[in-house]
């Protein structure tokens, strides 16, 4: 008995320890609803004392899923339709249980759906619905003279309008329009019918009516937490509290709060949890700043580590080979070749070796940074005034001492120029790292490019630009400290 209780204590300690040291990594995809759901799960876990690390805004289903399968993240909220089609490539509808069975071998499981179904919807204003007696999608077939406007994507996808029209025998003349503009046009009465996602915040805001898809044409996209099987039982129990808790209007309302109320994901998620009695109220600061800080820090980390490595390797390699012209040339050619691999291809090439996330991004950035550093260092070292080198030799400085006291200080301006160029180019290139889930300021840029959201793009581009300027300033400071004084003397005179 005594023995057992000791064991129990050890296990308790171990689990506490692991909870304390290894945070649960919660991810989201890079669109609003997914961020909110990420916050919901994250805050729920935090409420229960878990340590949570947010890895939000990953670039798509595949990256999320791969990250989960490889254990780089512990959970995220996915949609059943997506699991069926994009992940498992099934052609028929499958139940949650069936999905769970098929996905089990990857060490992953689905929890119960949250409740809402985020699928395509055909919507009209309440006014239009009443005047035309519209209840189901099929009712559109008889209603005449309705202006139907659809988003370009919905128009083109066969599981969008073409299929729907076939299924319900619709023959309306339709026009394509930007999704964002269509809501406004609908509200202004300029158009009558449009497509939407069933949880769009606009549905609530404009009090729109969803026409019933009574033939079940649109597949189900139920939100479900997708978790690693090895998640602690207590965490699973905590997450289970979300089962069936959130219906379509609820999700619409939260999306609307974010889009129209300009509130942060975290804030909206917290309010929901408080209302459900699942969490205490917390003070949440405006989300733009923490995001910005987090992205900037991550960006700094990516470029900082890559640059530090490139400086180390570049400078040492240069010092090692510069006396041998052929080797110097080979080194420069090689790092030049790396530059000709397009950045996206290079990042993609890294995945087999380093997986997704920070490491491949750092390796790629490191490789890109080498050329300017190597070339400038080698050029400077090989074009020094040979008289001074002869003097250094004559005085009795060893090779190493010559490097330290003559070559390096005299090459420093050119060397630093190369490093600064590499640093700034890195800051630019690192925005691509978001493509493989490495985060950083590319996150808002990539998301912004995808969503055509200029504000979001600027949330990445402006700090990146500032970072470049600050980097320049810091290097100027460093130069002031390390540049041989005689240059400063001249600058003054």
């Amino acid at each position, binding site marked *: 008995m005594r023995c057992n209780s000791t064991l129990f204590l050890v296990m308790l300690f171990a689990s506490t320890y692991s909870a304390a040291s290894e945070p649960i990594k919660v991810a989201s995809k890079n669109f609003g609803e997914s961020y909110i759901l990420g916050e919901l799960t994250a805050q729920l876990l935090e409420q229960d004392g878990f340590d949570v690390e947010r890895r939000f805004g990953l670039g798509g289903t595949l990256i999320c899923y791969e990250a989960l399968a490889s254990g780089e993240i512990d959970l995220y909220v996915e949609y059943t339709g997506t699991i069926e089609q994009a992940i498992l490539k099934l052609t028929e509808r499958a139940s949650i249980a069936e999905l769970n069975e098929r996905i089990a071998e990857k060490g992953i499981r689905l929890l119960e759906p949250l409740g809402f179904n985020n699928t395509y919807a055909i919507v009209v204003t309440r006014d239009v619905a009443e005047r035309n007696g519209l209840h189901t999608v099929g009712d559109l077939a008889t209603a005449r003279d309705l202006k139907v406007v659809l988003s370009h994507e919905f128009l083109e996808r066969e599981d969008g309008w073409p299929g729907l029209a076939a299924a319900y025998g619709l023959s309306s003349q339709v026009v394509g329009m930007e999704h964002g503009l269509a809501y406004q046009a609908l509200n202004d009465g300029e158009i009558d019918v449009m497509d939407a996602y069933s949880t769009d915040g606009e549905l609530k805001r404009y009090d729109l009516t969803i026409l019933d898809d009574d033939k079940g044409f649109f597949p189900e996209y139920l939100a479900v937490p997708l978790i690693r099987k090895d998640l602690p039982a207590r965490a699973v129990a905590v997450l289970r509290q979300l089962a069936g808790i959130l219906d379509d209007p609820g999700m619409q309302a939260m999306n609307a709060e974010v889009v129209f109320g300009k509130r942060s994901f975290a804030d909206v998620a917290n309010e929901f949890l408080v209302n459900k009695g699942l969490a205490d109220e917390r003070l949440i600061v405006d989300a733009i700043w923490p995001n910005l800080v987090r992205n900037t820090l991550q960006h700094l980390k990516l470029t900082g580590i890559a640059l530090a490595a490139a400086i180390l390797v570049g400078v040492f390699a240069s010092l090692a080979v510069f006396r041998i012209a052929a080797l110097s040339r080979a080194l420069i050619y090689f790092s030049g070749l790396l530059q000709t691999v397009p950045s996206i291809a290079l990042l993609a090439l890294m995945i087999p070796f380093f997986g997704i996330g920070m490491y491949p991004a750092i390796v790629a950035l490191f490789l890109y940074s080498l050329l300017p550093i190597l070339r400038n260092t080698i050029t400077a070292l090989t074009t020094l005034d040979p*008289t*001074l080198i*002869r*003097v*250094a*030799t*004559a*005085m*009795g*400085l*060893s090779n190493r*001492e010559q490097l330290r*006291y*003559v070559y390096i*200080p*005299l090459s420093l301006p050119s060397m630093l120029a190369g490093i600064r160029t590499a640093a700034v180019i890195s800051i630019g290139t690192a925005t691509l790292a978001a493509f493989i889930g490495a985060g950083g300021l590319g996150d808002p840029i990539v998301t912004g490019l995808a969503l055509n959201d200029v504000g979001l793009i600027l949330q990445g581009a402006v700090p990146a630009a500032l970072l470049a300027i600050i980097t320049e300033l810091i290097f100027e400071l460093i130069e002031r400290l390390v540049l*041989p*004084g*005689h*240059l400063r*003397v*001249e600058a003054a005179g």
Partner: protein
Amino acid sequence: MTNCVEFRGVDKSFVFGPDGPKKVLDGIELRFPEGITTAVVGESGSGKTTLLQLINAVLEPDAGEVRVFDEPIPDQHREKFRRRIGYSVQGAGLFPHMTNRDNVVLLAKLEGWIDDLIEERYQVLLAEMGLAMDVSNRYPRELSGGQQQRVGLCRALMLRPRLLLLDEPFSAVDPITRIGIYERFQAVQDHEGVSAVLVTHDMREAVRLAGNLVILREGKVLQHGPPQDVLNAPAHEYVEMLVKEHL
């Protein structure tokens, strides 16, 4: 009597122009006695600087052998060998990126001297060379030509080398300051028995400081021996001209 430097049939050529290599030193046979100064005098371009650089192995002879303190120049650890030879470069040759003090004390620091010792020696040298302490933190470019040359001399003397190679060390120094340096130099040599090779264009300087005189012309030794012997019995027309000019 041991020799501080010995040249045994040394040839040295440089390549310039399309005519192939040109002999700058041609069959040099010389022995410089230890503990005294050997002055090397000769035409501009006759190979004096080349001769010095063969001694501290900055240049390799094409033929023949150079021996220093009766030993061949070592193949390895040349930096140790060179540090025992103080070399004052023609035209100062200071490192532009180091302050004048750093130029002077660099080798002592690398040798691991303690700071107090370095500072003491530095101050003594500066005073001997008639330099004010305010040159210390300036860069060579901020000094006059003669000041630079004297900083270069301090650098050569810093480690108390057994052998000094002085390549026109006083050419940019005014005569009055120069006399002071001569006196310090002779006192140190008498006291410590330092050997020196002094390249100069000033026959009076050569006669005053050297116990051995070498006259070079077009890469060949015209005459060598104690200064008085050379003055009294010039062995060559050119030497005669030099002697006349000296008077």
